[in-house]
């Protein structure tokens, strides 16, 4: 039986998906069993954070002299100048990795991190770029990478959805439910949203009943429902689909019991909570999201996404970027350290990044009215930095490079398709064989592109 036949016969939710994972298996031995994607919506500035450019620093505020591509247009770049890094770069970790001093906690775990400095993507606008990062395609509606992973591997926990997105961006530039949608894959592979952007404290699954208050009545109701459905099945003949519906209520009831426990951060020690910066004003929100992510992957959820918005710094970069850095620095470092301490990092792949990076030249959307210190940077998909950790990736290395100014990726280039291919490879899936037939042809997450970045594999 092929994977697809199996699914057609049993399109009934994560219980079956878990079974499927045992039956279908991987294409090759997996290095990573689960994945956490830390999405920085808006486009973090690589040359201010991880991609040190001494020449850019030296030429700061001189007129930008590189040739822009033909027909390049962007607002607020008339008379644009080189824009040097806004913070000091320091050497961190055993190999003296150069990175911003704005991320001191991350610096403490940099020996576990693999930087990809040669990232590049296709679109300069948020919506298509975000869509490409999440689905592989910048224009058409396609399944989210989390849906592909779940389709390929199933879930390990039959009481929780296998693909969860914590506080997803639904508004803002490019935020949409399509980012966790299953596209043409069956809806059982769609991501389940947990809470709303910016409000991790109140993140819950939708339509969960109050198991404490109404659990007993609901249990009896479901027993009565099962009896009704059984009589009905006898009347019409046993049907797999009807059986699956009965099972889905049982799964839902168990999810209702288990989900609040998994999401209950009060069960963590004070030491763990403070490791993630929970309880501190600036880091509480992302800290909660990150700790929830660890609890979810620990419970067997296959793909967890955590989103932080506000990385789109067209102006006031000097003010705004340090705020974002502060918000995520301790939580991310805490997450990496915590995963490592629990022995989870070696088979959990962590991906950090935005939909693109930013330009080495400055941008002034005020048309000269604001002081020069208020400037920011324009979007830049030609070269930017993402980082990975754990899950079979070489730790403490930097792969790839941009030119002397951080404008174009020139070495060790990694396209979004290559990132997807590498991600699937680490999870034990061959991106060329993970296909789904739709409108008469086989589709892949990587379409007709993508190369596994072998240089970074352990």
């Amino acid at each position: 039986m092929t994977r697809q036949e199996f699914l057609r016969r049993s399109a009934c939710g994560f219980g079956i998906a878990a079974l499927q994972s045992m039956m279908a298996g991987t294409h090759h031995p997996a290095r990573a069993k689960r994945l956490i994607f830390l999405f920085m919506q808006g486009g973090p500035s690589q040359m201010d954070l991880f991609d040190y450019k001494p020449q850019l620093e030296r030429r700061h505020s001189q007129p930008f002299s590189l040739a822009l591509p033909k027909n390049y247009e962007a607002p607020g770049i008339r008379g644009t100048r080189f824009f040097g890094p806004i913070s000091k770069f320091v050497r961190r970790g055993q190999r003296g990795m150069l990175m911003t001093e704005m991320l001191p906690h991350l610096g403490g775990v940099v020996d576990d991190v693999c930087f990809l400095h040669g990232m590049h993507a296709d679109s300069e606008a948020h919506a298509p770029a975000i869509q490409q990062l999440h689905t592989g395609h910048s224009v058409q509606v396609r399944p989210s990478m989390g849906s592909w992973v779940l389709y390929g591997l199933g879930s390990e926990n039959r009481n929780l959805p296998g693909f969860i997105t914590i506080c997803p961006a639904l508004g803002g530039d490019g935020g949409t439910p399509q980012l966790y949608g299953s596209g043409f894959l069956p809806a059982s592979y769609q991501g389940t949203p947990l809470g709303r952007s910016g409000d991790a404290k109140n993140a819950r699954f939708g339509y969960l009943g109050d198991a404490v208050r109404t659990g007993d009545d609901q249990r009896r109701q479901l027993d009565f429902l099962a009896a009704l459905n059984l009589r009905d099945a006898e009347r019409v003949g046993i049907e797999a689909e009807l059986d699956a519906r009965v099972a889905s209520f049982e799964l839902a009831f168990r999810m209702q019991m288990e989900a609040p426990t998994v999401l209950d951060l009060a069960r963590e020690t004070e030491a763990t909570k403070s490791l993630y910066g929970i309880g501190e004003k600036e880091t509480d929100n992302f800290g909660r999201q990150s700790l929830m992510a660890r609890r979810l992957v620990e419970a067997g959820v296959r793909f967890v996404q955590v989103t932080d918005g506000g990385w789109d710094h067209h102006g006031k970069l000097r003010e705004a970027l340090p705020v974002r850095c502060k918000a995520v620095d301790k939580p991310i470092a805490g997450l990496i350290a915590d995963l490592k301490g629990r022995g989870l990092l070696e088979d959990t792949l962590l991906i950090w990044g935005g939909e693109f990076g930013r330009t080495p030249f400055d941008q002034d959307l005020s048309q000269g009215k604001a002081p020069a210190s208020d400037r920011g940077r324009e979007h830049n998909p030609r070269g930017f930095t993402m980082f990975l950790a754990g899950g079979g990736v070489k730790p403490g290395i930097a792969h790839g490079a941009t030119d002397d100014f951080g404008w174009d990726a020139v070495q060790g280039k990694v396209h979004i398709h290559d990132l997807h291919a590498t991600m699937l490879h680490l999870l034990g899936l061959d991106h060329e064989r993970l296909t789904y037939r739709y409108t008469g042809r086989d589709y892949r997450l990587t379409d007709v592109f993508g190369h596994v970045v072998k240089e970074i594999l352990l």
Partner: protein
Amino acid sequence: MSPRRLEGETIRDAMLAISGQLDPASGGPSLPFWVPGNMNLGKPEFLSDNAKLDPATNRRRSIYQPTVRKGQVEEMDVLNLFDFPDTNQITGARSTTTVPTQALYLMNAPFVKQQATALANLTLQGERTASERVRKLIRRVYARAPESGEVDRLRSYAASLPGRAEAWERLCHTLLISNEFLYRR
């Protein structure tokens, strides 16, 4: 013929019809959204968060209700959960999935509970005995005569629950989420 699950629109419409809440008006163009005065229509990404169905027409059939490209508004969440196609892409045939998030919706969504309450109120009007009420309920929900023993089984379930109104609401709720209601045969 093998049973077919009702589509999201039909689940909503059938529940409204059975509970007596359906606005039977027909015809005309798609209905507009009810949009808060301070909403910026130039920022449509906020539409699905803020827009609501027009309260004057939100009980009309699903086919007349407006759709959003990114995902349906909260009041039409039944569509998001029950395989309503993405309106950005061509869909030759809808998939029919059976997942626990649908079960959670059926168990706990305010919309479903409201229909159960309205149906319970309808059931409690008129008929004098519990058996007569159950008979009326079966006819209304399943469009068939009760089978032997069925009235007693339903009646004793309701009698086993605390509170008269709550008991009938839970019975009505259970029938509305049963396979016989959710599947066409």
